[in-house]
Structure formats: C-alpha cells, structure tokens
C-alpha cells in the first residue's frame, strides 16, 4: 500500500524543461511514475522526451495541463523566485497534491501559497523537500529509486540525504517501505509529520513508522504526542542536530534553535515520553525497526 499517491497518480511536472525538472522527470518516468504533462510558460505545444521514447506534452499553464490530461498531482521544479507562484497555480487549478522540491523560497511568499492551497483544498508536500516515493509504485520528487524496496515500513523525514541514509539501511536489512516521505526542511511546510502519521495510520500496509526529525520548531513534539495518543503501530525516531549550537541556521531554513524550544534534547524527550524508541546513530534505525516488528 502507499499514502497520498500510488501507481495510478497522474503527474504534471512544473518546470519540466528546466535543468532539474527535465533530469528528474526522466528519473521519475524510468521508475514508473505516470508523468502525463509538463508545464513551462511560453513553451506550450512542445513535447518532452522521456526515457524509452516516451513523450510528454508540454503546456503553458497548469490549468490547460489538467484540462487536457487529467493530472491529479504536481511536482514543482521551478526556481525560488517563481516557485511559490507555481504552487499557487497548481492549487488554483485544483491539483489535490503538490510536491515542491525547490529550496530557498521566500517565507512570506509561502504564507500566501499555503493559504491558497488550504483555500483550494490542495495538499502541498514541501517546499525544500525530496518528495515522496512509494516503492514499486511511483515516485514524485528526487528520492533515488534504487535505495528503496517495497515493504511494511513508513518513513517520514525533514531532510533529504539523511533520509536516503536511513532508507538504505532499512532496505539492506530487508525492511522495505510503503512510502518514504520527505516533508522538507523549511519552516513553513504544507504537510507535517502528523499529516503523514495520520495517513500511515490509515494505511493497512504500514506496520511500523520511522520519523527522522531535526532541530528547530516543535513539529516532532507534536508528532510524538499525536503518535502516543493515536497510533497503535511502533514508531522509531531519530533527531539530527544534537551538536548544533543555538541561534545558527544549520543549512535548512527551518533548522535553527531559538530559545529553549527546538533542541534535539527536547525532541528526543518528547519521542521517548510517547513510547518512540530513538536511535542515536542512523545505522541503528533499522535494528530498532526490526526489533519493533519482531523480526
């Protein structure tokens, strides 16, 4: 099983003719994602060549792409100056699920984009996220397909490569995944840990969840509280940034400790208080999951 998307999801790629957009569109198509349309303003009418001779029509606007192809999810690979507008365009075209990979979008732009997405009933994943992969089914974003495998574990993470590290260990330990979701490293993200936990809770295929958090904000604490209250499958946690100094932005715009909130200690405590076992090294995650699943 999977969450949010599956093999039937029809994907439009915004910024398909750009450097990142074209590269990752081919990667997604090679994995099996149904990329049905691309959008680049001013390049409507062209055809994008995917792997194996597959051809994807390019449109000027998302609305046209939806009208002509029935796309029901979007992936945004658009430079930061225009990315919030691209999300708003997708939401305004009533795309129900929008993945935004772009990093570096102004936060005030995102306050408006998130507001419109809420008004239009669109779920945004990200921005500044690697996307979502449902092993064996579909991938939207940039998570490398070769490190995942189908199986019973749901994974949620604020980061990109750290997610790969954890998934890699899981896959090598024979613990495949229902879905791996990178929710993004920005302070304002459209899909939270809790949103993903709810989705995994409703997915009969998911038997355990891995949550990979980091310093900054209180999203992990909320997720832990929610899991403690509502989730009856085991959760394994990891928090990056135990050695990060306060007040410094650690790469991700969201990874900054302000005041006493947002430290790794606080988050670790919240995890443990809610029955979530916390790995101290990425390599420990798979062992804790195997243990929790009784394997």
């Amino acid at each position, binding site marked *: 099983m999977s969450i949010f998307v599956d093999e039937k999801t029809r994907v439009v790629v915004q910024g398909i003719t750009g450097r*990142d957009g074209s590269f990752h569109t081919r990667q997604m198509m090679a994995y099996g994602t149904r990329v049905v349309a691309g959008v680049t303003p001013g390049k409507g009418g062209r055809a994008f060549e995917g792997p194996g001779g597959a051809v994807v029509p390019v449109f000027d606007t998302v609305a046209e792409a939806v009208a002509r192809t029935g796309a029901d999810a979007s992936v945004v690979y658009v430079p*930061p*100056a225009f990315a919030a507008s691209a999300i708003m365009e997708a939401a305004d075209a009533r795309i129900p699920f929008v993945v935004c990979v772009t*990093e*570096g*979008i*102004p*936060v*005030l732009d*995102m*306050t*408006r984009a998130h*507001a419109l997405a809420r*008004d239009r009933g669109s779920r945004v994943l990200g921005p500044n996220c*690697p996307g979502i992969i449902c092993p064996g089914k579909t991938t939207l974003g*940039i*998570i*490398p397909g070769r*490190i995942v495998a189908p199986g019973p574990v749901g994974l949620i*993470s*604020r*980061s*990109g*490569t*750290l*997610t*790969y*590290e954890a998934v*890699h260990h899981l896959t090598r330990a024979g613990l495949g995944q229902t879905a791996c979701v990178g929710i993004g*490293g920005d*302070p*304002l993200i459209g899909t939270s840990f809790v949103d993903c936990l709810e989705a995994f809770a409703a997915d009969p295929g998911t038997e355990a969840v891995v949550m*990979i958090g*980091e*310093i900054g*904000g*209180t*999203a992990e604490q909320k997720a832990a509280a929610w899991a403690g209250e509502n989730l009856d499958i085991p959760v394994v946690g*990891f928090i*990056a*940034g*135990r*050695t*990060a*100094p306060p007040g*410094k*932005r*650690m*790469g*991700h*715009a*969201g*990874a900054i400790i302000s*005041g*006493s909130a947002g430290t*790794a200690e606080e988050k670790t405590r919240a995890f443990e208080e809610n029955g979530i076992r916390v790995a*101290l*090294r*990425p*390599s420990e995650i798979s062992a804790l999951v195997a243990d929790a699943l009784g394997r």
Partner: protein
Amino acid sequence: MNLHEYQAKELFRAAGMAVNPGEVAGDARAVRRIAERWDGKVVVKAQVHSGGRGKAGGVRLARTAGEAESSAEAILGMEINGLAVERVLVSPLEEIASEAYAGVLVDRDSQCPVLMVSAEGGVDIEEVARDNPDAIHRLHVDPRYGLMPHQAFGLAGKLFRDPAQRRQGARIIAQLYQVFVENGASMAEINPLIATAAGEVLAIDAKVSLDDNELFRRPALAALRDPGSEDEAERKAREKGLSFVRLEGNVGCCVNGAGLAMATMDLVKHCGGEPANFLDIGGSSNPDKVVAALEIITADPAVRVILFNIFGGITRCDDVARGIVEATRRIEIEAPIVIRLTGTNERLAREILADAGFAAGTSMDEVVQEAVRLAG
C-alpha cells in the same frame, strides 16, 4: 541577514514611524560633535549583530559631550560575543514614562506572520516569555488580509490605556507590520517602544532580520550587509553557495545535505570526537564547490582531520571525487582526508580517488570512527 539598529531604524522611518533621532559614527571625536547637538545628553549604542549589548557594556548614557566621547572610546573596538564594534549610534536621551515591546515574525504552526506585544518592554523578551508568558499577547495575521486596523488597535490596547497613546501605538504596530512585509523580513522588533514623559509614543530601538531568500529581489537591502560583522569563513561559504557554521572541534566535516551533515557532526561527537564545523555542499554536483569547501575547512588551524560523508542522489559521487583531487592539487592539505561515498556514480568516484591515492569507505559509522581516531 541581520540589520544594524541604525539600518532598521531607517526602514522604520521610511514607513513613517515615530522613531527617536540618531546618528552613526565610527570614531569618538565625531561622537562628541554629534552629542553636542543634543547638549551632551545622549545614549551611545554599539552597532553590532549581537543580543545583550547592554549587559556587555555596549550601551552607555552620557550627560555631557565629553562623557559621550569617552563612552564611544570605550565601546568602539570592544568585542561583543566575538564581534568587533566598528560603529556606534548616538541618540538624544528620552524621558521614558513606560516601556513596551512589539515584534513580528512568521509562526511555523499557523504559517502566518504573528505579532507579539507586551507591556513589559525594555527587557529580554525571551525572559518574559519564560517567566511571565501571559504578559505577551499574540495576534496571527491572516496573510490574505494583512493586518486589519482593528487588530492593530486591539494590540495597542494591551500596551497603552490613554486613547491618544493607544492610537499612536496602533499606528506604530501597523507600520512595524508594513516594514516586515514590504522588506521581506523574517523578524522585526521594537524593544522598547516607549511612551515619553510628554506622552509621545516612540520606537527607541529597532531590530530587523531579513529573509536571506528575499535578498535576490531586493538589491538595495542586500547592499546593507555589513561584511565586517561576518565570520570570514561563513562569508566565503555564503558567496560560494555553501552552508557553513564554524564550531569548536577539530574534525572538519564536508557533507551533502543539511540533515546528513548534522547527523555526521552528531556521530563524530557520539564517537568521542568534536566536529570543527557544519558544512553542507548542497545537492548540485560541482567540483568547484568541493574545492571551495576544502579551502574553507583547511583555513581553520584547529582542523586535524577532514571527513567527507557523501550519499549520492542528485549529488554525483564522481563530481565530489574530482573536487577532492583538484583541491589537493591546488592547495596544500596537511590534515588526512577520510572519505565515505555511496550512491550515484560511486564506482567512477572510487576509480578517480584511487588514481590519486585516496581510499573511500561505504559505511558512515566506520569512516566517522576512523576520522575521530585520526583527530586523536
């Protein structure tokens, strides 16, 4: 990007806000001349990107122009939290009847700008938040409507009872929000927002941080960056598009991805070592960035070993390998380099490294342990 108080006040004035006057100077003689204009009754404030200026002695009151000059002498050249003070702001003393606080930032949970006001101004607002949280009043601003007049007036009522002062306070709160939005700020703050003995409401301090992601479209604001206020290595990293934070240890770290970079630092510590830095080379595959990263890391004399941890996704391992080889040709690197590579183009990367005499591991745990051992 943080602005200096005097820069932030210029933005406030441009929005029409009632701000106390002031002038910036870089030497004590100039401070004397400025102070004379106000009969010597001035406050001299260090312009430096650090909190706690007052506690560090960076804010001094003067009753005469001579006092102002000697205050400036004491402050200029002083170091506050490791930052040298190069400029002071000189302002006339105000007779303060009451001190309030007003600030705005973007709240993660509501995904809206949130205005915060407190009648307990002039003190560290973090302390107020901890010791007396009810003294802070919060208002979420719906970004679709912006700050509405009744909201500003409602907040001002938490600060001022006098109707005229409340109206002035509401105007200043609205102007603060306007400055925040129109300049792409991540934080804007007035502490204290005072009522003078004469009953005027006035911003006598100002703090504004700009969202770095906004600067590309606001060149006039980007030009306000004070290069002297920045760590040299952090400045260079920024210019090269790298995320870098200097730390105290001796294991230089070079990682792709912010989360993995933090996890690598944590693992260094977990294995008994001390990371010398946070460094994320980002997702793009670019040998030049790797060279720049190595230049920055090796410029730190404390570094005893250099640790690469690369999980190739978008990042191509061969690009990183090329960068390492290129850097060792261009610059003298004495510290040993320990490498972990896995993912995209891993095999090619190993060949490139082997040709240059480097080995590379595949396990993050093993390589970090090795680096910590070498750092001794």
